[in-house]
């Protein structure tokens, strides 16, 4: 492949043409993977919309959802995405990885706080009788929202693995490639959350 066809942002700063070509293939492949993942989330959201009225006499969105905590979660997640963005920029422009690691740690801290808030919300829902076994509505809620949380948790685990690789190998091409893909995943999860926020929470309360 010629250099002219490369998409912006895929230059790893490496001297080797082959590493850059590899970056293009891997990041493109990861985007395709995200498309497949988007289908998963899209279908679960559709299922939620269909199941939304099936409360089976149990608690509905009005009783269970608390907008304040959802708003805080949203802010946490969006900010963590900004942090990942800075980390990504540092990867591209800074010769030394200090800033990149710092921003990555901030992003992780924000994301894990998000997960903490989410777990807190779920436990509160449980205590109010909102368990997944209670109704079709709650089943569809608990298949969709925690799956997103699980994705966020595994993204953080991936970040730890990347940091581990940096300790062993330094900032080599593999680490850079993983960072680029992690950033894609992180932003993707943001988009999915916007969907969840609008369809599940706002849509549920409307």
């Amino acid at each position, binding site marked *: 492949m010629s250099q002219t066809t490369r998409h912006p942002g895929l230059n790893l700063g490496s001297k080797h043409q082959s590493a850059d070509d590899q970056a293009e293939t891997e990041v493109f492949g990861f985007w395709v993977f995200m498309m497949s993942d988007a289908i998963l989330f899209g279908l679960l959201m559709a299922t939620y919309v*269909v199941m939304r009225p099936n409360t089976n006499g149990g608690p509905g969105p009005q009783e269970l959802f608390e907008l304040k905590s959802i708003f805080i979660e949203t802010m946490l997640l969006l900010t963590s995405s900004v942090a990942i963005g800075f980390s990504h920029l540092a990867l591209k422009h800074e010769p030394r990885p200090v800033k990149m690691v710092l921003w990555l740690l901030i992003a992780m801290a924000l994301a894990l706080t998000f997960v903490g808030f989410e777990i807190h919300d779920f436990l509160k829902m449980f205590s109010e009788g909102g368990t997944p076994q209670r109704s*079709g509505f709650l089943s569809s809620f608990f298949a969709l929202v925690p799956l997103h949380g699980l994705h966020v948790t595994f993204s953080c685990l991936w970040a730890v*693995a990347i940091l581990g690789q940096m300790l062993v190998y330094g900032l080599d091409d593999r680490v850079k490639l993983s960072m680029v893909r992690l950033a894609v995943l992180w932003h993707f999860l943001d988009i999915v959350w916007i969907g969840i926020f609008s369809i599940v929470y706002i849509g549920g309360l409307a």
Partner: protein
Amino acid sequence: MNTWSSIWGFPFGRLTLDALPVTDIVRADGRTELLSGITGTAAAGMAVLGFVVVVILITVKGWWRPLWSEWLTSVDHKKIGIMYIVFSFVMLARALAEAFVMRSQQVVGHDGGGIVMPDHFAQLFTTHGTIMIFFMAMPFLTGMINFVMPLQIGARDVAFPVLNSVSLMLTIAGGLILMISLVLEPFSTGGWSGYPPYTEAAYNPGAGPDYWIWAVTLSSIGSTFTGLNFAVTIYKKRCPGMKLMRMPLFTWTSLCTSILMIFAMPPLTIATALLALDRYMGFHFFTNGGGGNMMNYANLFWLFGHPEVYILILPAFGVWSEVFSTFSGKTLYGYTALVIATMAIAVLSFTVWVHHFFTMGQSANLNAAFGIATMTIGVPTGVKIYDWMLTMFRGRVRISVPMLYAIAFLFLFTIGGLSGIILANPSVDYQVHNTLFLVAHFHNMLIPGLLYGMIAGYTMWFPKAFGFRLDEKWGYRAAWCWILGFMGAFFPLYVLGLMGMPRRMSGYFSGQWLPWTIIALGGAVLILAGFLALIVQLWVSVRDRKRLAVPVGDPWDGRSLEWGIPAPAPEWNFPSLPRVEGRDAFATLKASGHDLGPPEDGFEDIWLPKNAAFGPVIGALGTALAFTLTWYMWWAVLPLAALVPLVIIAQGFRRDTEKRVPAEEVRKEWRAFRELAARTPRVPRTSEYTRDNRGHAIPMSQEATR
């Protein structure tokens, strides 16, 4: 049993001695139950015996090491393709045996009784359907694409070779679960589509549906990765000059199939995962009560299920395109039309899924819309049929084995397509749904379409994989058995369906059905003979491999890039990446007399991916997880589940992943190949099936002027 073991399921979970099919014999009460127990035990015994024989053979021959280091851990797309196809043949053998037992039951089950109990019969049609779709058809076409597509686009390998190995091993893991379920019963009785609420815990609390859920989930994840891998390969790994509209048709259909896999496998994963949540954790997605709704499942499953039909058929369409043009000695007629038709079919396939449940209570208008959408698929498919016929027109047609299948396909597939148009009409569908008419229809599409296509492709590309042709005499025998056997086995089912015989029936009392079931059994026997003929063919061909050798690699006067390299193809595929000027790349080179490849000074070092144990390890973990989940062995489930991310992280730490092939070695092999080609006489097409054919074809264009 103490509390600890019941919570943790230690060590066997809910697995007891009852799971062994022998207990059916011991507890049998009456003749049919006894026969049913014997049938089950015999099948299980064959599986165990086969396994033991293979293990002993490998040990005696000392094949463990090469098996591991040259095959199981290989990330070479050609070897992965071959492993896929070997696996699909094994699964085909089992599913055919089941089909034979089912057909026999429907003959002897007249007036009650027979050789298998209804519950056992239900397991048979469930495993038969599940295996044929997920573990025979999908691996066969995935293997075919794996082997052929990278060669056709002039690539060294697929985009993600290790992921490719993971996909294979996940598919094999699902197949292992199915083989285990033969020995530790029961399997699901819910059909290949596994409809809840019948497969819910309330009605089916045993291990059966859980086996099904995990086997299907493993293979669907594998297929998602496969689609991703192939699509990225075709987008990013084409050799210089291989523009999209220059790609061979098989590559085009591979691309569309891959896109379908990326978008159609996730609905299946969702469907099985939600069913698992229902069964394992008491969720209410598809249950009767609690706010569940089965229609969610119907929609999710068929959002996968209908595109799946085209995942299955498109690669075969690709094979047919190559077969018709190669064995007619002509450029493919209507290339652009075929590409557009392929894409149209891929898009339309997502718009028709409701035709799988016309009778489930939606409005007549909705049914009408989906009925019309369904019928429109006939248009691009018709375009293809005409293009293939016109490719033969004024060509020099050779009725080779693949061509025999191809011509049978044209006739039989058209009949199947017409019965599909009939079924697409909702009012007709109300009459014949859930009868054998439907069974006849989809077998009519999948056997002449998919299976003949795959066997034709196997016959055509076998020499490229192993360096020798398949014996033609046995090839014709197999083809005739498959063609006549199919007609015998499935045309009677159209009649039975119109007479009102429901599908999935183990016994009946209507005397007028009996003669047709006997004819169908006769057809099944012929199909079985066809399969045996394929096995004999393989045996005979391996024995006579010297006589059948085609080392120069172009036995059929092929038209695309893969025919320009030696047979078997070297690990690096191409000594240097080809440069393509137009369609039918290799045919053009031959016509201009430049078919012996690049000049010798243009070689560079080649980097190839190193073997990886990652795939087999993930496959083993997948099998173990699925098995322990099925039998509730929670003490093992938790550590196994934790191991999966750990193994993935460990894989991320691998750095030394590539090996270098020095330019000198490539040059030496290529020089040897050119010398071989120079001293191997070229053969005309009339000698294609003689021992003169050493794989050095006289191009059709030059032969005509001699």
